[in-house]
């Protein structure tokens, strides 16, 4: 259980790393279209494939 508490109360450096990652993504995501969904990734791959 000691380990579990440790995960639940992150040390300062973990909080900093999480904040950096989340902040970077949030800044870029600010102008995403409302219709944008994660599944758009697979759609983009299929649409970008060569037509042969």
């Amino acid at each position, binding site marked *: 259980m000691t*380990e579990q508490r440790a995960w639940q109360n992150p040390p300062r450096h973990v909080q900093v790393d*999480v904040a950096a*990652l989340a902040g970077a993504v949030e800044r870029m995501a600010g102008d*995403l279209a409302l219709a944008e969904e*994660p599944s*758009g990734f697979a759609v*983009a791959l*299929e649409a970008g494939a060569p037509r042969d």
Partner: protein
Amino acid sequence: MTDQTLTELAAAIAARKVSALEATEACLARVAKLDPRLRAFITLDGDGARARARALDAELAAGRRRGPLHGVPLAHKDLCHIPGLPTSCGTRTPEYFTSEVECTAVARLHAAGAITLGKLNMTELALGPFGDNPHHGDVDNPWKTGHVSGGSSSGSGAAVAAGLAFGALGSDTGGSIRLPAACCGIVGLKPTYGRVSRAGAMALSWSLDHLGPMTRSVRDATLMLEVIAGHDPHDATSSRRPVGALSARLDAPIRGLRLALPENYYFEGVTAEARGAVEAAARTLESLGARVETLRLPDPAALIDVAGLLARAESSTIHARIARERAHELGDAVRARLEIGFHISAHDYLQAGRLRARLTREFIDEVFGQVDAVLTPTIPEPPPVRAEVTAPPVDDIVRRMGRFSRLTRPFNTLGVPVLAVPAGFTRDGLPLGLSIAGRPFDEATVLRLGHAWEQAGDWRARRPLV
């Protein structure tokens, strides 16, 4: 015999110039001689491999050839679930990973006649690019002892380079096929996301994981890909797009193909030798008729941030149990990387997924609207000394990990195919790497370019002096 490529061996077995058992014994003899230094294997199944080789030889004598890999000895990263063999995923727990589903890629290789020699070493939980492992030993570089093998498919890279197996499966979440391929001087293909089923292979990040071949030639990688690619009902993310006859298109001319050398990011902080190797490859491809231009690519930092967030959230979710209950059994760097994922919010995870969709669409439109492939270095420097890059403190190790894999990770966010091929050697005899990235599901073009480069170079005949 072990100097032959997979394709050459398969042809020799088909012509009954050599038997599957002879090939298997040759590999096992190499393992006995070299693996005490390389530490490429976690589990060696010599008896099983011999029994299968005898059965395959008997079938061939009776006129039955299972497929293009009949009798060829392979080995696979120890995160592929193969019935009858334990799967450690690089942990100290021998059967950490269990699955109801056999690894589809391995099953397809078996159906094509391949033999499995055993399970190959890897970075613990596939989390790390250097090939070190506190439980199963650090995989050594076949070209120079004490240098990193690359990771996380470290055993796959070393085993194939040193002739312990004729090919191997690796997995790639941030470069784990391409980095060991570059460090060990072999070929590694990260196929398009969805091209090869991930079923039966331990996930590190289901959004970013790719399974692919690691071999000694581009033709070998092509052959293995033809066998393992294609839709799999056990993997909902596998594509239904036809694979096509890739080997038949390998020798087509590359004249007229448009290639880009990135203006930004991919040559920043790269050693002169690593940069020079890629530029030399570009000149060679140009001399064969390709058109090479420089191109500014969409911001790779954004792709790396998205990959980082997705990978940490998903890997912490997948490995929550071992991280929470047995964290003391994990290496410091692995534990540190897992810990971050527990604190990423659902909001941020979903935003990263949405952002990935847009970034991928934009990259494909902007880049592959202008060129057919992008050339980059695979590793920013020659394989470094292992003791230096794995030296504590843990924060420094994690930073070095990030720097070493910074050229490969953007392509996991994008999901496009990337072929890592050798690009010559440093003055000290260490391998350098070239990566060729192409349009989604256009493995045919990156393989064709890699094959053309391979045929033009003189490095293919070089073997490590292990």
